[in-house]
């Protein structure tokens, strides 16, 4: 009995989690999420080095990274990276911005909905990359057809998700604001626009991934420079390591942009995040 009463407080104390600083929690989070990735890379390294998989097709990660560094040092990388980034960002902006605007217009203004809803529904299933030859005819070779096809790829997810976001708005909110004296402009800026932000960001992130894939595909066949063209060229001359190095670089573009967008989204939509965390 005596032992029991003595043990009780100690057991209680051990139930409380030890206090951790924010910094330490962040570090642990980063380690936890990067551990599987590092593990997979290590495994790849080992099986490639030991010859379990063919090093010609799957060179070890260390060699690929070394190749990236070497190619960069020799000036074989920067130009192509710049060209690809420009095409991609221009295409993304030219597609996503009008897409978001049309999505908002369709959600807010009846006539836009009536005109564009059926048009979007019909065009949406067409694979956008299939339009590339038409753009080649119109624009000739070089950056313009690639930017155009990237923009086209970005456009549709941006329209569809933004439109869905505006439609999902609580129908009473605009009436409530109007009753309190809001002008049409105030209803747009204070109710409709912020209400559409979460899905708008979801649409932009979706566009981003699709657009990079499209942009690189377009470069395969329709460009003489850019990372996509480089990947294609190194395949043709059978330089696998160089091919991998370029794949790593183009993936980095996607990862960096996706994370940037996620960070902006978190900052703007902290209320949404808070709700998610509470559940």
């Amino acid at each position, binding site marked *: 009995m005596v032992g029991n009463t003595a043990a009780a407080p100690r057991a209680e104390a051990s139930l409380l989690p030890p206090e951790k600083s924010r910094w330490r929690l962040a570090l642990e989070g980063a380690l936890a999420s990067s551990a599987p990735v590092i593990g997979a890379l290590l495994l790849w390294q080992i099986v490639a080095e030991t010859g379990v998989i063919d090093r010609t097709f799957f060179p070890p990660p260390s060699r690929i990274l070394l190749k990236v560094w070497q190619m960069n040092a020799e000036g074989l990388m920067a130009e192509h990276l710049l060209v690809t980034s420009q095409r991609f960002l221009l295409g993304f902006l030219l597609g996503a911005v009008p897409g978001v605007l049309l999505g908002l217009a369709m959600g807010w203004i009846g006539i836009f909905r009536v005109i564009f809803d059926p048009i979007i529904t019909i065009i949406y299933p067409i694979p956008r990359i299939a339009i590339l030859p038409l753009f080649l005819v119109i624009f000739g070779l070089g950056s313009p057809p690639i930017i155009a096809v990237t923009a086209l790829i970005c456009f549709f997810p941006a329209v569809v998700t933004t439109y869905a976001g505006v439609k999902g708005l609580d129908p009473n909110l605009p009436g409530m604001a109007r009753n309190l*004296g809001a002008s049409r402009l105030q209803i747009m800026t204070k109710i409709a626009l912020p209400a559409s932000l979460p899905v708008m960001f979801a649409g932009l992130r979706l566009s981003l991934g699709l657009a990079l894939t499209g942009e690189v595909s377009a470069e395969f066949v329709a460009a003489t420079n850019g990372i996509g063209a480089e990947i294609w060229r190194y395949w043709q001359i059978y330089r696998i390591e160089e091919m991998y190095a370029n794949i790593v670089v183009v993936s980095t573009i996607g990862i960096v942009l996706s994370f940037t967008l996620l960070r902006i989204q978190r900052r703007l939509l902290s*209320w*949404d995040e808070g709700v998610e965390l509470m559940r």
Partner: protein
Amino acid sequence: MLSIENVSVAFAAGSRVLLAVDRVSLEVKKGEFLCLLGPSGCGKSTLLKAIIGLVPVQGGRIEVRSDARVHPPAVMVWQEPTLIPWRKIRDNVALSLELRRVAAAERHAAAERALASMGIAGFGDYYPRQLSGGMRQRAGIARALVADPPILLMDEPFAAVDAQTRRLLQDQVLALSQELRKTVIFVTHSIDEALLLGDRIAVMSARPGRIKTIIDVPFPRPRGTEVRRSAEFQDYEERIWTLLKDEAARAEVAA
């Protein structure tokens, strides 16, 4: 204060036209607490929306007479509190001032006062979804108080909260209405609530909504919840139920 003359509201439902409110006339005096009582779907809420111009009327006219040129003259407290989910409670409650471009410090002070008078002082920093249904509805009422209109329209504000919270909120609205002496139109389908809160009760028929009769509530003000226990209260409850019974049955068949 507010006069409604021969007002009808109709909706297009598919190919048919649905008459929601049928030639309603009402005269609401300044400082009066009028309850609109009727079965579900009788057009009570539609009538409120017509008053604030959110649904068009088919005939008749609605006129607000107010000595002060206040905008907006009538503010709605919604059945669902209709708070903006991405705004903190404080910024929801002070919305009307923000729309009028009142300075932030003044807005916050007004919001704090309104939150305190609704018994949720200190919850200004929370987001709507972090609060219970009853607290959200209190915030919805606080938002209307900050707008400080001459006329308050309340659309079954306690329909979505549990029975105990409902009684607490009734007490609070009773006390507040007596203190502020605002003109209130309060929509409810609870006879008990209408008798407790109202000066007069306009009993409505099942759809299309008409005013069946108007009852003067005899209990003197200031009144408290103890009026519920009087024999007279129960007597009135019975009388009104007799009036409403057929309408409620008709509404149920129609639905």
